[in-house]
């Protein structure tokens, strides 16, 4: 039975997603995950949330999935040790070296290779398994055939994002944001938050989502108001197939959304998964799609507002 994993941007969100039916929740350690600090948690909040999850019989995963500087890896290991002592066992990482170091130092740690690893083929999945990961996140647009191959060939858990923010570029292979604006900001623990780099600090200014003019070499406009191809990403229709395929974790992103919206999203996916598993032959998708439309529209409204804010924030720094 696939695990339903949801986002925990705040302790309130952790409680909301678990109460609404998530089996597991992921949270970001401050400065260490692919979201800006306001959607990450400090260590005490993480330890308390982990304890809440454990008492509910559920799992809390800590995301350390930014790509650090070499000198920051000891900080990561020290933080992991602290969380392990508090009973947290599950971590999400991107940096291959950090992954190898963590699995060597703490063999009990369960490591998932993050969406930031941009895992696009079964050989990729096998590489990350060798680096210490027990589960890998499929690149957002991976087709089912590739997923099937990973399940059959790689011998590693497979996690699929079904409700995510995608990028024009391959997620994890883009530095457009930090090209326009990047600031190094070191926190009290010595961690650089690399503001403006989604890979390194989590904050992305989403400049790809603005409209562009395409100009030829001689300066003439070839096209105005070009939107780089990037469609919102919901795999509701695919959930039955993903379950049949034996996907280990179905993940919903959303740390930056309101607690009420995230709670509603989790409840929706929980009920959908349960309904399908309960009676696969007579399951019908249509009513679920109608309900989903309402969630998507609320989500898009929150997202549009955030994107506009991020783009203007990028401009103010230059």
């Amino acid at each position, binding site marked *: 039975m696939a695990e339903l994993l949801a986002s925990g941007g705040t302790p309130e969100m952790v409680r909301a997603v678990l109460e609404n039916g998530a089996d597991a929740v992921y949270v970001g350690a401050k400065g260490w995950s692919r979201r800006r600090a306001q959607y990450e948690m400090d260590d005490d909040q993480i330890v308390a949330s982990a304890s809440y999850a454990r008492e509910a019989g559920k799992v809390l995963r800590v995301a350390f999935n930014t*790509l*650090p*500087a*070499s*000198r920051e890896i000891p900080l990561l290991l020290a933080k992991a040790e602290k969380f392990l002592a508090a009973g947290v066992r599950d971590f999400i990482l991107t*940096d*291959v*070296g*950090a992954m*190898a*170091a963590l699995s060597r130092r703490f063999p009990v740690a369960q490591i998932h290779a993050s969406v930031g*690893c*941009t895992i*696009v*083929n*079964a*050989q*990729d*999945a*096998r*590489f*990350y398994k*060798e*680096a210490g990961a027990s589960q890998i996140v499929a*690149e957002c*647009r991976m087709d089912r*055939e*590739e997923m099937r*191959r990973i399940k059959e060939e790689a011998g590693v858990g497979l996690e699929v994002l079904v409700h995510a923010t995608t990028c*024009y*570029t*391959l997620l994890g*292979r883009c*530095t*457009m944001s*930090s*090209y*326009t*604006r*990047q*600031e*190094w900001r070191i926190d009290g623990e010595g961690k650089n938050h690399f503001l403006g*780099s989604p*890979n*390194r600090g989590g904050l992305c200014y989403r*400049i790809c989502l*603005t409209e*562009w*003019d*395409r*100009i*030829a*070499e001689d300066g003439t406009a*070839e096209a105005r108001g*070009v939107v*780089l*191809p990037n469609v919102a990403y919901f795999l509701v229709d695919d959930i039955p197939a993903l379950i049949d395929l034996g996907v280990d974790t179905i993940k919903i992103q959303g740390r930056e959304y309101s607690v009420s919206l995230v709670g509603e999203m989790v409840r929706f996916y929980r009920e959908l998964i349960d309904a399908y598993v309960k009676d696969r032959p007579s399951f019908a998708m249509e009513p679920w799609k109608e309900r989903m439309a309402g969630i998507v529209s609320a989500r898009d409204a929150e997202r549009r507002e955030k994107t506009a804010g991020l783009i203007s924030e990028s*401009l103010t*720094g*230059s």
Partner: protein
Amino acid sequence: MAATELIASLASPREREATDLGPYDAVCLGSPYCRRVRGNFAEELPRLPETVAGLRAAGKNVYVTSPAAPRGRDLPHVERLIDAVAAAGAQALEVHNMGVLRILREKGNPLPAHMGAFANVYTHLTAQVLREYGVARVRPNAEVSLQEMEILSREGGVEVEVLVHGKIPLGVTERCSLLTEGEEASPSCPSACEETHWLTTRQWVLKTVGKGILSGRDMCMLEHLPRLLSAGFTVFKVEGLHETAAYRSEIGRVYREALDLATSGKPYEIRPEWADVLRRHSREGFCNGYYFGKSGRFYVGAVLQESKPKV
């Protein structure tokens, strides 16, 4: 001082033609962005033996790139590519994807790997892991600073390739920004990316090559060459993909002369004619901010600092 290596990247015979490779010690062949680039050396394998032999005979080191993000359906081609590159006598395969690296190891490492710009190598510990897979050289992610690159090189036990000039690869995608319809159906493919296209909005300018997003400004480290050399870096790349033959030829000559001067023991200074060449080939000005911990589009330096208001 250790010998330096100046590398040019070339996607296809079309880019090879009319490019003066005299200033360069090495060539990296092929485009990692798109398998449909016309004449892509990393795609049209029968071309490799003669091309590699010709360049080797001219005294060049020859490397061949591989697709930046191959799906499973592309892996049979990757297998053939590795065999062909090794058989042709190239000295390394440029690798952007860990799956490709793993296949190279499964084949018994017939040639070393150089990790490319999209491999996301940020730390010395990652370099150490990659070394076990046959990696000899690493091009760190664009965001990695010079200081971090020194650590990566020293403690990772790998050579570090430094991008010294050209457009910074910023992103790679599977959806061509130059086509409005599918690749197979589009009459514009593969000719669209043979022309130059810029994306502009607000105060930003980027260059698009279809499936690759590049910086609008040119990375320029000319005035920092002595610092790079004293930090121990010896491998320098000029990004020549999707540029003109004159760009590759003339910028190569500038960096060759500059490297010769910087390693001669004589005082180093930017010659006005060098600056003229670089400016002539730079539509949007220069940048190098990532190396100094700033926004990638910023330029840090005292000599070539003036640049256009747009980035």
